[in-house]
């Protein structure tokens, strides 16, 4: 099998794993992205029934979506342990805040409906929403830092992070963080639109275009900053103009969303949003490749798919595991989404 990848496709194991980790995190962004987005918008809905509908639209699927993050983290650990170790220990406090946020939003979904008191529900509503916003923001800030480059030095032969928590909060990273919040809010809004009916549905329809405007504005700022200050990210686009197609598809997909929404084709709008996210992740991956974490100011210390990888035998074994496991996961995940297709209604099994 390795020969197939190597000779037929011209891919070595390190490249294959770059793609696989990318696929896992893209899956995470597209799936957990919408339930984080529902969380970001949660406090804008007002009545208890509306909030319950929002929660129940993601009820059956949010924890499965979060597994993409867990598996992506595991894959990163197995395939590129140096990245896992350097980034996780380097971004220590940021990751702890991310964990706290993810915990809060997860248990809030589960706990909110367990008691009828308004104060109880309001507290968990806030926990759910703030947890979702902070999670999205931190994920975006991390992406921004990885693209911008972080100070890396060599300590005892290992590449280590040489900055602090506040080094992570520079303007570029913050713009990326806000862009991610806006992107997830848009994605979640479209998802919720697809899953609801009646008054809430019409309310959400009014919100979609607003979330698109906010996202596009932030995306434009982010793109300009990237072109001006992070030229490395667009180097491959300049070298191989065919890749510009990705940008074109990305823009078309985003532009298509309001069109589909106005035609009340909510599912198509959601697919467009997914395609837009796929393009964004592809552009990010393309810009980074073959690096995984850029070192700034000293690019020589960057972590890339060769100096950060585990042994070829592990990459091979893991590839077998992924090729057996991922198709099965995709099939039953699709089946489960199919079971829960259609509009969400409140019943006695709802949150």
């Amino acid at each position, binding site marked *: 099998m390795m020969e197939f990848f190597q000779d037929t496709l011209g891919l070595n194991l390190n490249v294959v794993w770059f793609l696989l980790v990318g696929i896992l995190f893209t899956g995470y962004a597209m799936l957990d992205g919408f339930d984080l987005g529902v969380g970001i918008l949660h406090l804008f809905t007002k009545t*208890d*029934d509306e909030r*319950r509908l929002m929660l129940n639209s993601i009820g*059956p*699927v949010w*924890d499965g979506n*979060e*597994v993409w993050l867990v598996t992506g*983290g*595991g*894959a*990163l*650990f*197995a*395939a590129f*342990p*140096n990245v*896992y*170790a350097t980034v*996780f*220990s380097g971004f*220590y406090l940021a*990751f*702890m805040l991310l*964990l*706290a946020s*993810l*915990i*809060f939003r*997860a*248990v809030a979904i*589960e*706990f*909110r*409906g*367990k*008691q*009828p008191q308004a104060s109880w*529900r309001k507290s968990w509503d806030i926990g759910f929403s703030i947890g979702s916003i902070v999670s999205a923001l931190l994920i975006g800030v991390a992406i921004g830092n990885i693209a911008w480059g972080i100070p890396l030095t060599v*300590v*005892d*032969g*290992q590449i*280590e*992070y*040489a900055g602090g928590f506040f080094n992570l909060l520079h303007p570029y990273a913050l713009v990326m963080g806000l862009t991610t919040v806006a992107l997830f809010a848009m994605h979640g809004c479209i998802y919720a639109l697809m899953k609801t009916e*009646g008054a809430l549905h019409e309310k959400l329809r009014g919100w979609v275009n607003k979330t698109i405007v906010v996202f596009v504005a932030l995306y434009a700022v982010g793109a300009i900053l990237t072109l001006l200050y992070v030229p490395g990210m667009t180097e491959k686009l300049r070298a191989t103009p065919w890749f510009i197609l990705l940008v074109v598809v990305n823009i078309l997909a985003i532009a298509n969303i309001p069109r589909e929404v106005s035609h009340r084709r909510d599912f198509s709008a959601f697919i467009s949003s997914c395609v837009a996210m796929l393009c964004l992740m592809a552009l990010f991956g393309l810009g980074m490749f073959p690096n995984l974490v850029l070192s700034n100011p000293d690019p020589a210390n960057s972590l890339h798919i060769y100096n950060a990888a*585990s*042994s070829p035998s*592990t990459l091979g074994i*893991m590839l077998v*595991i992924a090729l057996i496991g991922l198709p099965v*996961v995709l099939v*039953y995940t699709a089946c*489960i989404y199919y079971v*829960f297709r259609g509009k969400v209604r409140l*019943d*006695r*099994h709802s*949150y």
Partner: protein
Amino acid sequence: MDVEILARIQFAFTVAFQYIFPPLSIGRGVILVIRDGVWLKTRDALWHDMAKFWTKIFALTFAIGVASGIVMEFEFGTNWATYSRYVGDIFGSALAAEGIFAFFLESGFLAVLLFGWDKVGPKMHFFSTLMVAFGAHFSAVWIIVANSWQQTPAGFHIVGEGLQARAEITDFWAMVFNPSSVDRLSHAVSGAWLAGAFLVLSVSAWYLLKKKHIEFARASIKVALAVAVVASVTQLVTGHSSADGVAKNQPAKLAALEGHYQTGAAGMYVLGWVNDAEETVSGVKIPGMLSWFLHGAADAEVKGLDAFAREERPPVNLTFQFYHLMVGCGVLIFTISGVGALLWWRGTLFANRGALWVMVFAVLLPQIANQAGWFSAEIGRQPWIVYGLLRTSDALSKVVTAGQVVSSLALFALIYALLFAVFIYLLNNKIQLGPAADAGTDGGAGSLTKSKRV
């Protein structure tokens, strides 16, 4: 305090908190399968109510388990970066396999289990229950494989030297089936089954005592007791073979478990206190018992702690105490399961208020035993993070400071205290409401918004 001790406290604390929940999911997964299965065969509404009630409680523990579980996966990287680089090849593989083979299965089908009652047929629902239970067990398999590799590394070679050394897989199956995997997995899974069974026993016994939901409670007790009897027997068997394995593979740990200092014939303590400075143990001891237990002869030689330099030994008293706490709880669990089954067989269990009260409180025993067992296994592994290869003190993240760990530790302490309080409050609430209340309570609408429902 230094970073090492803080990082160890944080890991121990977060893992101990998390480990309250997965055993409940694993154990109750088995019970749910039995219930859903009986319902599928008999279509008796009682079993349907039962499955629904326990599914709700399952969901409660599952959510906290998932949320606090992600913490563990991140912590290897955040606090133990050197360890992560050293074992990424192996430990990372097991974690990734756990994600792909276990977590997706469990979380995916849990959706059908919880929200799919009216959306899929009974057979599909049963299949989902089965998949959730499988997922929970697969997850135990991979995480215990990974942890057992830390105890008894196999199927690898070391590449590089000094601080850049790392372990690489040479034989995947030898890594998976390392010398302690099977023993430790079966032992931990038995513990998980007991945790699930005893929770059901406790709630059902309480209902019987309060003369509520009698039919429901009787049927529940039978299933739980059957699982408890099987699991408490496998617990003994796997406990024995685990100890055998520790004697072979981790002799310093074995010696610490029984406070055995001088190489020679070894006894077993019923209770005791270790004075590590003077290398003495005071307590009640059965002489020659450990020698007989391991080698079939009371005078057989067992390697003592004197065979190891002090810096190669684990903290003896802690290992000893946790181990004896686990064994003590194990004996009680075995007795309660056995006597409970005997009373049930004689038909007097449901009228025996004393036995029922014991069952109400016995819910704590498997929890304590599971925790104490892990503590003795992991403390007994010290000073190694990977036995014989990498010291815990060398495994830390170099860039993480004590101040950072203090803040994250405080953060987790706060969050987990809150979660635990809410969990107990809600669990109690659900139990008080009971199975009959099923239709109205969850989904939280209660009677408030019932009329407004779509």
